[in-house]
């Protein structure tokens, strides 16, 4: 069980938006698990529910039914304050597109993470430097996002996702603003970080060329997993 405590478990996960006649089931009865150190892709056409699923895994949305267990805690019914704390402490997000704060330098964008946890410190600064160095963007530390290339921006975003040393790294369409060569590089470094740091890595993408870097692919269509794993 101690191995499972470090992983992620989704059980009969369902999300319904609206109610009555207008109710829409965005995610229907999805079950799967991901081990620490495993990098998994969720693919599917737009509207298939993959972003909603990602939001439930990351504590951005509550589940209507079913549960999400991350690192031994069931987060699926937590209130907003509990989920915000979960996101601060256990989750690293890489959002789609231009997701850095435009008026903060690369380094300051990383320092947002300790700042919102009230843990700004010299150690946090050193850690930000270290992460930027590892992702090869250290010399861009004092540049604003607008002065960085698309690839550099994504590397800064990945560094930010690792700032709080999360259990779970969630990535939303990481290549949507990149050409395929840069996209490939970015996803490869993501995969490396997940492996090296023993994180639970989950990436939502529509770009099938990126699937060479992942351990496993979950296909979604119409809110369901296409090849459901056996119930754990």
């Amino acid at each position, binding site marked *: 069980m101690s191995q499972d405590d470090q992983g992620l478990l989704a059980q009969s996960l369902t999300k319904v938006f609206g109610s009555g006649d207008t109710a829409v089931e965005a995610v229907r009865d999805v079950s799967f698990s991901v081990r620490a150190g495993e990098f998994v892709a969720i693919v599917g056409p737009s509207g298939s529910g993959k*972003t*909603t699923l*990602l*939001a439930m895994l990351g504590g*951005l*949305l509550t589940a209507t039914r079913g549960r999400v267990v991350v690192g031994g805690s069931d987060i699926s019914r937590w209130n907003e*304050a509990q989920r*915000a*704390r*979960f*996101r*601060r*402490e256990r*989750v690293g*997000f890489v*959002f*789609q*597109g231009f*997701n850095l*704060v*435009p*008026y*903060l330098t690369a380094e*300051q964008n990383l*320092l*947002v*993470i300790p*700042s*919102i*946890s009230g843990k700004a410190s010299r150690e946090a600064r050193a850690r930000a430097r270290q992460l930027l160095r590892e992702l090869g963007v250290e010399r861009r530390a004092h540049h*604003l996002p607008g002065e960085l290339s698309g690839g550099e921006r994504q590397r800064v975003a990945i560094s930010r996702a690792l700032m709080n040393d999360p259990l779970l790294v969630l990535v*939303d369409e990481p290549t949507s603003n990149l050409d395929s060569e840069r996209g490939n590089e970015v996803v490869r470094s993501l995969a490396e970080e997940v492996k090296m740091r023993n994180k639970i890595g989950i990436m939502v993408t529509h770009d099938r060329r990126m699937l060479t870097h992942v351990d496993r692919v979950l296909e979604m269509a119409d809110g369901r997993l296409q090849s459901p794993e056996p119930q754990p």
Partner: protein
Amino acid sequence: MLALQEIRRKKLQFGLISLIVGMVVYLLVMISALGSGLLSAMSGAVNSFDADLVVFSADSNDSFLRSELTADQRDAIAEVGGATGGIGYLAATAQEDSLTQDVALFGFEPGSVAEPAVRSGRALAREGEILIDRSLSRSSGLKVGDQITMRNALINYNFTIVGEVDEGQFLGLPSAYVFLDQWREMRYPGHGQDAPAASVILARGHTDNLGARVEAAVPNTSALSKSDAIRAIGGVTQQQQVVMTIELFGFVIGALVIGSFFFVLTMQRAYEIAIFKALGASSWYVFGQLICQVVAVALAGLALGVPLALVTEAALPSDIPLQITGGAFLTGGASITIAALLGSLFSARQVVRVNPMSALGQV
């Protein structure tokens, strides 16, 4: 501080709002200064009385112009307790060569609490000598040693200026001081000993409800605290109400300007706020950042508006009743900070309503 970084990167926007806030601070300080200037011009000389209580005659409607107290009343008031002293009031005209100037002429009982403190020159020694207020020497150029004529009821009285006091103005007129007996002679010429003894009696004493005891012990008197006596001066209350109303408008305008600026700013960065929230920031955190910026803008506005007010005071001619006091800065500074914080509450709802899901490009 990350919130201050945004100000650094958006110098133009924050510079302009700070400029506007600075102008509102300037306005508030100047209005407050005009208010105290007006109050001082109307009642400075009364405020300078070294007394807790001003006793008027009951039928005077608490007016220095109408109040008349007899010698019996004066003696009875002195018996109630505390230190007392008679004051006589008269609006007279000072003349010297080409100068004609209305003054507020006070008669005081020598050696009593009513006697003003001499700042330069010497105290009165005999009748025919007069003390003038600084406001009079400044506006007219009169100085110690000069001869002036005071005219009242078609009679001229000659005086030598022997000293200067710093008591202030009354009803917009500079004050001047003579012995009470001389005032009596000028105010009631030909009445001799039948004339009233004084306009009002000042009393000083720490005993509680001295006023009530005076009114009870001495018939036909009306005892007011000094601040009530000032408020009873015709027009003072109305003037101060006008000033306060204008200040209130300035306050509301300040709150609206700052409020709408931060409201628009908050709407513009809804996406950034969504990212902050998705990363786990609470609405409190985001709002705290906003408050930091609001306070920074208010401080910048103060840093602009306060020196501007000081420069204006130095540049304006001295006959404009403008008195920049610590209170004026406090009023300006405190009200703009409160206005800024109230204004930013508009944005609080906005911050709370941002859904972190929009960071994922949904909702």
